[in-house]
């Protein structure tokens, strides 16, 4: 085998097109996971113990099974389920599958953030006669979420790296394109190297950005003083 720079430069623009699909899919999955993550937090707080227990168990199930199995289920098995089954296009199936899977992780992150807010903050909000909605939006979440930004960011990067799983159900993004090119020209090393480089080029600066954000939010009110407020 010889390394062919010609092939290398030829596949860069091709895979670059796939990069946008990978990024788009990552963002779509992540938004879905962020919103749905709140759903798990919300249902866990339903006063009915049975209902919150059922949902906690469903979340645990999703968290404990491989995302690839979930993707296959949503894409291949779901259409065969009577009554509720529908055939989804690969992109939508990937958003649902990966988004749902990661929403269960993000809900744990939210939960840890919410539980880290001192009980006194709830009590002061009640004493000031804030409504439930105002308590959450003005007092609890603004304190619960910033400390979790590094964790949320880490999950974004992890998810970015899991998105190639979507190629297994036919989403044509970077990996799929590299693979197709390889199959056609019997050249795998260069295109797959380009894919790896693109992932590195995005993941590493993102990790740096996240650690910067972490510092910024920690400066705003340092942790030690919060407990004594």
């Amino acid at each position, binding site marked *: 085998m010889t390394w062919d720079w010609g092939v290398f430069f030829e596949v860069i623009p091709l895979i670059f097109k796939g990069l946008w699909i990978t990024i788009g899919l990552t963002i779509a999955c992540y938004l879905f996971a962020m919103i749905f993550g709140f759903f798990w937090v919300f249902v866990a707080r339903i006063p009915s113990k049975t209902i919150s227990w059922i949902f906690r168990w469903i979340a645990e199930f999703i968290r404990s099974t491989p995302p690839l199995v979930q993707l296959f289920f949503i894409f291949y098995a779901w259409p065969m389920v009577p009554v509720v089954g529908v055939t989804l296009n690969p992109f939508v199936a990937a958003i649902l599958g990966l988004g749902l899977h990661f929403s269960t992780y993000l809900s744990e992150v939210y939960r840890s953030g919410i539980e880290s807010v001192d009980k006194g903050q709830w009590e002061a909000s009640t*004493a*000031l006669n*804030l409504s439930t909605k*105002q308590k959450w939006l003005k007092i609890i979440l603004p*304190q619960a979420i910033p400390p979790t930004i590094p964790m949320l960011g880490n999950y974004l990067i992890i998810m970015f790296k899991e998105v190639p799983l979507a190629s297994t159900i036919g989403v044509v993004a970077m990996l799929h394109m590299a693979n197709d090119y390889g199959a056609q020209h019997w050249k795998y090393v260069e295109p797959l190297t380009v894919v790896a480089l693109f992932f590195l080029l995005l993941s590493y600066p993102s990790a740096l950005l996240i650690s910067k954000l972490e510092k910024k939010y920690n400066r705003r009110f340092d942790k030690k003083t919060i407990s004594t407020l």
Partner: protein
Amino acid sequence: MGKPIVNYSKIHKSFGDVDVLKGINLDIKPGEKVALIGPSGSGKTTIIRMLMTLEQPTSGTILVNGENLWQMEKKGQLVPSDDKHLHAIRGDIGMVFQHFNLFPHMTIVENCMLAPALAKKNDKKEVKIQAVEMLEKVGLGDKINLYPAQLSGGQKQRVAMARALMMKPKVMLFDEVTSALDPELVGEVLEVIRDLAKEGEMAMILVTHEMDFALDIADRILFLNEGVIEEEGPPSELLVNPKSERLQDFLARFNKR
């Protein structure tokens, strides 16, 4: 002085197997200053927390301005209060906490502005003017744009008072507001409370361990012991000539310190 602004009748409260309050009957008149004293675990704090709707009584009724706080009428029957009912009554009550509970993500003027700006669709500028005035009143007019973390304990507690006063409550609850403070900062907080007491129109219920202070500002002192009001009366009588043996013991232990 007319009808009471707050009335507790036959209030019981238990946490699990522990009976904290065993039948509390209590009237607070408008503008009256009442101090609650007693050993720790006697249920002092629970009494005011139930009025602030932070704890629900196990049985009994609390009336605020004649309205039933923890129960409401629905289709001719008494049912436990929902959020809306509590919200409507709670506006007359304010509370200052032992651990301040300021909102750390807001400046102190924002802490004071938040609730009034959200509660009524007040003009934000008007609310800000009031908040600044209130902070000036508690001696923090030059610090309005600082965050709570930048203040001393005494300053934080004065902000907490300003924040509670912004809601113009008819009854203000003080839950051991000086207990978490360094001794040299206690004075500045008591000073603000004393000024408020002089203004007069607001009823105040203070859970406190500061006997001299209670003697000074309270119209009436209640001595709580093991979940019941053991003795009550004007401070001069109660603290100087305690009748019950338990209160005598309690005060003796206090004076020894």
